[in-house]
């Protein structure tokens, strides 16, 4: 099944999945997690990936981040076939072009929030080393954590940890943010704050792809991609938000 939504029709997609399939081979046999997926994601979109457990949501997102490899098909990000990159180049590419937000935040517990935010800049050698701390602080301030910048993750609330994880995802100013159930462990108020951050980022021109179970969020999404048994069953459009995305300034292109 193919879904193709282009808010500006003549604009080229930032992410494009072509005939993507993934099959896991286990002791009990072959398990197709994704079947013939053809999707396009554009700049400024805030896309929700929805589906039941085992529907292939995480596998789909992992194909974009390069964390998992397709059995068939291609994933192009800004025209680059990311699965054709060698492992090391892929890691560097991911660090510069993708911000990943995990369900369990995955902050390094032995580093302060600032140091966690500094890590992607360090590994990808982005920005002048002297500028990095100021940038990390600015990002933490953006998510409301400037007072807690020097705290360890274990000494702040889970919501604050997820906010710090969002700040870390933004460290290298990536055009794409991929989030795997980022509010799955958060209370409603904190989840609302996370959605707010993502909506703002999308409004700034970043592409946000988020796995979620939360039906309340759909109003804030540009569109949703619903998955069932590894197939896209109904692309849903939210034209009002898509229209606002059209008028937003676009961030820079992706780094190959």
């Amino acid at each position: 099944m193919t879904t193709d939504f282009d808010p500006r029709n003549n604009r080229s997609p930032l992410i494009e999945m072509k005939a993507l399939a993934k099959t896991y081979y286990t002791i009990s046999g072959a398990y197709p997690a994704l079947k013939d997926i053809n999707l396009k994601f554009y700049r400024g979109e805030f896309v929700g990936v929805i589906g039941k457990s085992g529907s292939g949501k995480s596998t789909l997102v992992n194909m974009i981040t390069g964390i998992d490899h397709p059995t068939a098909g291609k994933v192009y990000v800004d025209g680059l076939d990311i699965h054709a990159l060698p492992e090391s180049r892929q890691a560097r590419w991911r660090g510069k072009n993708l911000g990943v937000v995990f369900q369990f935040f995955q902050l390094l517990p032995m580093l302060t929030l600032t140091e966690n935010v500094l890590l992607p800049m360090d590994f990808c050698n982005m920005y002048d080393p002297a500028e990095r701390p100021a940038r990390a602080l600015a990002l933490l301030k953006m998510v409301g954590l400037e007072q807690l910048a020097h705290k360890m993750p274990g000494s702040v609330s889970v919501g604050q940890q997820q906010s710090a994880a969002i700040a870390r995802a933004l460290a290298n100013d990536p055009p794409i943010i991929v989030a795997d159930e980022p509010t799955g462990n958060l209370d409603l108020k904190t989840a609302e704050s996370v959605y707010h951050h993502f909506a703002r980022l999308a409004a700034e021109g970043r592409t946000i792809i988020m796995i979620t179970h939360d039906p309340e969020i759909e109003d804030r999404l540009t569109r949703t991609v619903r998955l069932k048994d590894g197939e896209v069953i109904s692309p849903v459009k939210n034209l009002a938000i898509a229209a606002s995305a059209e008028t937003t300034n676009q961030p820079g292109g992706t780094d190959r």
Partner: protein
Amino acid sequence: MRPRWRKVIADWRSNLPRFILVTLSLMGGLFSIGIIAGGYITTLDDMQGGFSAINPSDIRIRTENFDQSLIDQVSSLDGVTAAEGEKMIFAQLLTAEGKWQDIIIRVLPEEEQQINQVELLEGRLPQEEEIIFDIHRAIDYQIGEEVTIQTAAGQIRKMQLTGMVRDQTIGTLSGSYFIAPVYAYVTYDTLPWLNQEKSYDLLLVTVEPELSNQEYQALKDDLTGLVEQSGRYVFTITDLRYDNHPNSGYVSAVSNLLALLGFLSVFLSGFLVYNAMAALLAQQLQHIGILKAIGARQNSIIKMYMVFIFVFGLLALVVAVPLSALAANSLGQFLGLRLNFNAGGLRLVPLAVMIQTVIAIILPQAAGIVPILKASKVSVQEAINSTGIQTDEFGKSRLDRRLERIKGAGRPLLISLRNTFRRKSRLVLTLITLSLAGAVFIATFNVRASVEAYIEKVTAYILADVNLDFDRNYRINEIEAIAKTIPEVAMVEPRSAVTAQLLNADGGALETVEIWGTPPESLTIKPILLDGRWLVKGDRNAIVLNEAFASFYPDLKVGDTVSFTIRHREVDFVIAGFFQFIGSDFFLA
């Protein structure tokens, strides 16, 4: 500091007890290597340096009494750098407990001592009727006190002790340093007072170091000829040209053994590093996944953990190098006193430091690289979902399936068994570590057993409870009768010893050999035979030779005839057998 290094430091801190143990273990290994290599090198250097400094004799000729005129003639030979006379007197020293103790008195030459110099450590050199002692055996006298000596003829002489010296030549000839008696030194002019003729009976010669072997042999022949032309008989001529300090062999033997133990302990440290890293990386798999997800490449991760390991090695090295140098110095001082050499001061031995550095850098990295590579290759997805426990390993091998089929065992026992075999590489490593540790333990006991076996070998040829040495030959019956007047004496057996010279086919001197004469039915010898047989009643001119003959002259066989000069006479013996003595190059027959 970059956050990745903050993480490395934090990892160190959070696993401090484990890593302190690993560092201490590495430190122990490096320390052992440092003390062994450093101690070995400094000890041998000090031994060789000190021994060369005393100008040791290259050739030692035992002959009949001679005086300065023969020395002057020898000195004038081409190739001879120095010649000197020496005499050794056997006497007894009265101890504080009122007992008589054997001593050897070396007579210092009239002129300033040039060869086999003794080093004055305390007090002053003796004048006429005065005496000095070597420090290697404890004596009951202080400098300034009067020492009571009994000569071989039975005269009692009281002599003032004026000083203490170190004589590094003790044990040069028969490796007998540890059983050597007290050595004392008097002047040439003191000889008549000790009822001795003013003469020498040992000619010590040093030769030019540039002499080729042929020139050296020719010089030896010239020397023998010169002594014989003077009307004196050459009893023995001993070649000491390339001899090291007489006790250097002990240092080499012990160092080789210790080096083995040191390397084993280093290997054990390596296994500990491997285990520590494997455990740490199992815990940190999620962190590795996160790092990769935010842009860390495999190389960056490998570098982080390699630096992490490098810190172990560096810390261990920084502590082990000075500590091992200090310990090697203490060991040198300790050995100097016991092995009769002058230990130098504290110093770093570049080779030892280099070995330690190479081991400190390479060993932990080599031990840690396997788990690091394995962990760094893990995919982000696998790493992030990891719990630190590998679940997919057990159940694949035949052994696992057999363990699964065990019936009748309780569940806790089955869990224990399966856990043991769950990670087989770790099991193998643990077994190797335990085996190595066991090997070190057993090796230590083996060394002790070897020493005991060595002592047993020596004592197998001296089984008497009491040995009495006489300064001249006595009739056996006479001594036996006197000895048996003591009720506790169960058995008396005579033995004589003579120094002989092994001859080659042309009658040229080869080796100096000690020949023991013993009854064939001896009860004080239990020989360890390597070939042939021991002496039997009725043997005439039969001889058994020790392993030194077999190793230096492999063509010699049972039934061959060998020739010796013994007290001016050439005597032929038929080889009855070969026996094992103490495995040295000391020729005994």
